[in-house]
């Protein structure tokens, strides 16, 4: 009689496995150390930071650096903290994500189902844009936006994020739609659906998974952007990353490392939140963004 083994396979703790766990723990310490240092530094006062080990836990918790980083830390001559940057980042991110995801979804749909002569040539051109260094495009694009009268404005920066997000988003939408059963599309055609109707009633209801991936990709990407915000957003709309850099780098007088670290944590809260909430989806987004072609 054959006995099929069931339940958990007994594990032997060999030397190899112990070594493996040691290595993985060392790696985990390396990856966690900066986060740990960030958090504990933000909770110390400056005397302790100067006197004590950077890795030591704070002797007594001091929370004063947090509100300071949020609302009174100085960037150059203005002392409003990161707060305006946070709201600017939201003002930039929300419309940019909506516009770029919406436009790319339509692009992907048109490319997957309504091919016309030359469509793939332009798609290739668009994909090529994903690899051009920003430095090549920044100045001419600035001139274009200047001519359109939207340089240094909110619509200007939204347009820039839409442009630079488009190649990769179009690709993942196209790949997703190309994997849908074509018969579905044919049936909709026979039932008299046109370009817009099929998109609205057949395609959009099926697009939830890929839209989530695209939104995660864009929210973290746009929130973390620095260069484009610096050049295109203008003084009134500077995103949080730019303001963070201003707070930390333009430090007249004594550097306040605890305030700097609080500000750094505040700036990374949104992407970290997205990462921890989305988990599996974030990983899927990376994989989708990575598999080009």
């Amino acid at each position: 009689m054959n006995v099929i083994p069931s339940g958990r396979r007994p594990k032997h703790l060999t030397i190899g496995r112990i070594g493996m766990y040691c290595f993985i723990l060392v790696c985990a310490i390396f990856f966690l150390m900066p986060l740990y240092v960030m958090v504990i530094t933000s909770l110390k006062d400056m005397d302790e930071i100067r006197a004590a080990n950077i890795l030591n836990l704070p002797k007594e918790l001091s929370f004063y650096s947090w509100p300071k980083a949020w609302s009174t830390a100085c960037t150059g001559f203005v002392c409003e903290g990161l707060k305006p940057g946070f709201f600017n980042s939201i003002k930039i991110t929300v419309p940019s994500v909506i516009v770029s995801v919406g436009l790319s979804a339509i692009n992907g749909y048109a490319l997957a189902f309504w091919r016309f002569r030359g469509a793939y040539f332009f798609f290739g051109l668009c994909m090529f844009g994903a690899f051009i260094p920003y430095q090549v495009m920044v100045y001419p694009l600035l001139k274009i936006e200047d001519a359109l009268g939207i340089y240094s404005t909110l619509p200007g920066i939204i347009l820039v994020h839409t442009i630079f997000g488009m190649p990769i988003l179009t690709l993942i939408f196209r790949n997703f739609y190309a994997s849908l059963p074509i018969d579905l599309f044919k049936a909709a055609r026979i039932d008299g659906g046109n370009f817009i109707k099929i998109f609205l009633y057949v395609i959009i209801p099926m697009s939830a998974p890929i839209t989530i991936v695209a939104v995660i990709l864009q929210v973290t990407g746009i929130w973390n952007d620095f260069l484009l915000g610096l050049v295109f957003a203008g003084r009134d709309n500077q995103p949080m990353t730019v303001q963070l850099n201003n707070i930390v780098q333009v430090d007249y007088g004594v550097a306040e490392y605890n305030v700097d670290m609080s500000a750094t944590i505040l700036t990374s809260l949104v992407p970290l939140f997205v990462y921890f909430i989305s988990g599996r989806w974030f990983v899927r987004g990376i994989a989708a963004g990575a598999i080009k072609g």
Partner: protein
Amino acid sequence: MPLFRNIASMIALLPMIVISLTVFVGCIIYSFVYSLTNSKLIPVFNYIGFDQYERLFKQRKWDVAVENIFIYGFVFTIGCLIIGFLLAVLIDQKIRGESLFRTIFLYPYAMSFVVTGLVWKWVLNPTFGLENSMHMWGFAWFELDWLVNRDLAIYAVCIAAVWQGAGFVMVLMLAGLRGIDEDIWKSLSIEGVAKWKSYIFVILPMLRPMVVTAVVLIAAGVVKVYDLILTLTSGGPGYATTTPALYVMENFFKRADLGQAFAASIIMFISVVCILAPWAFYEFYLRNKYAAN
């Protein structure tokens, strides 16, 4: 196919086509044309041939920038690949707390380069950072003055970048490892091949597409590196950690030397094309050709 059959689709793709032509193609042409001029503060068409390129190649600073991007590109790519692959293999060993470790190794990828740069700047601070910690623990000989050391500063940038990007490679590799057929493992264990040997000589070659994708994506990112260096070292000490991207931006926005900036950006663009062309040729041309046969 009649030329105007999918008129709706053409209209829908119009934004993509316009953007591809004006921004992606147009900006390169614009940059190239004005790289042949002696534009200073504003672009003027005053043709001087390839003088800007000649001047560029004579700049000591540009040499340093190119040297740095090679060091950074090499160390960062190799570092990410080795650490990412090792972590993926270890996580694939059915270890305890798998998802916890995966979260730990990937979270830096959600952080922006600005945050990464600022955190490592603090951790590596020569007065209060890790060096100080080691001294306090009695290792007086320990030196970690990388950020203020001309020769080592670029490696500090590499460490920060690997910290941020290794999790990304791990995710890609892990996806590859999970896709490997159980039978291959069975036959390898019947043959009595040691596990580490199987990983290096059998599994790694099977993951080649993943490795190639990872290398291409990392390499395309290498040329763009800007925020990280700006926040971590500001290109210093002196100009020891400057890179082509920093060089371009400096000439655009600080030194008002547009012609020079355009020339440098065109060189950046050409080098990206040189990296990508063989890969794109393989990916889109050869593969389709063989797939068709």
